[in-house]
């Protein structure tokens, strides 16, 4: 079965979505990621969506689900690289991705994960504050 690869980088997991995902593939990724968090005891998940040309409500819900499930499993999720056209469309569609942290690129996303991991929740500022 077709799968999106999950890379392990120290205590983090890295996923780069590079294909136009059909719905079942998105659901499989959700399952695989939660399983991988548990298996590796990961403390962070970085999802790079810079190649995604569209995020509809189904993919949006998958991203929200991953963020919420990983939080329960003691891992933070940061979504990076959203294309401007995708962001504009998401807002008009009515999707605000509640509970999902975002950063502009992989670099900032990794720094945000580090900050989330090593600071108390009150000390962690949003990525925008460092821009």
């Amino acid at each position, binding site marked *: 079965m077709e799968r999106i690869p999950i890379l392990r980088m120290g205590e983090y997991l890295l996923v780069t979505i590079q294909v136009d995902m059909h719905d079942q593939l998105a659901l499989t990724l959700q399952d695989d990621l939660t399983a991988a968090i548990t298996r590796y005891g990961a403390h962070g998940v970085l999802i790079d969506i810079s190649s995604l*040309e*569209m995020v*509809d409500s*189904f993919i949006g819900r998958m991203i929200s689900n991953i963020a919420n499930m990983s939080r329960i499993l003691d891992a933070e999720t940061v979504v990076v690289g959203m294309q*401007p056209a995708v962001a*504009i469309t998401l807002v*008009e*569609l009515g999707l605000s991705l509640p509970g999902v942290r975002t950063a502009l690129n992989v670099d900032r996303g990794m720094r945000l994960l580090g900050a989330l991991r090593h600071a108390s929740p009150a000390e962690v500022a949003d990525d925008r504050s460092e821009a």
Partner: protein
Amino acid sequence: MIVRRREVIHLRSDAEIVRARQAVRAMCAECGFSLVDQTKLVTASSELARNTLVHGLGGTVTLELLEDEPRRGVRLLFEDHGPGIADIARALQDGYSTGRGMGLGLPGSRRLVNEFELISEVGVGTRVTVVRWR
């Protein structure tokens, strides 16, 4: 108004939703849409194609490249012969869902297009027509 090109895609599986949105993207590019406008219509098509598959139990989408001097646009017609929608007003409300989604499919895609028409009859099927002009 002239239809420059017409294409029909069956919607019977997840993979065909992907095919439909790729075909919509190609037609938007052909029509000269900006990237933002392309993304909006592709996203709307993904929502509506999923509705056709999940709620309409499969159907078709017809893509049309329109020319109505001086403007050009893309029209999408989603058709199914599924159970139909009993309460259309409610189906068009944000957050109302009977399926696996977030209830954004119809109201959300309506916001992403210039023209939106929904015709549905219980026991007969549903037809959604959307147009986005360049």
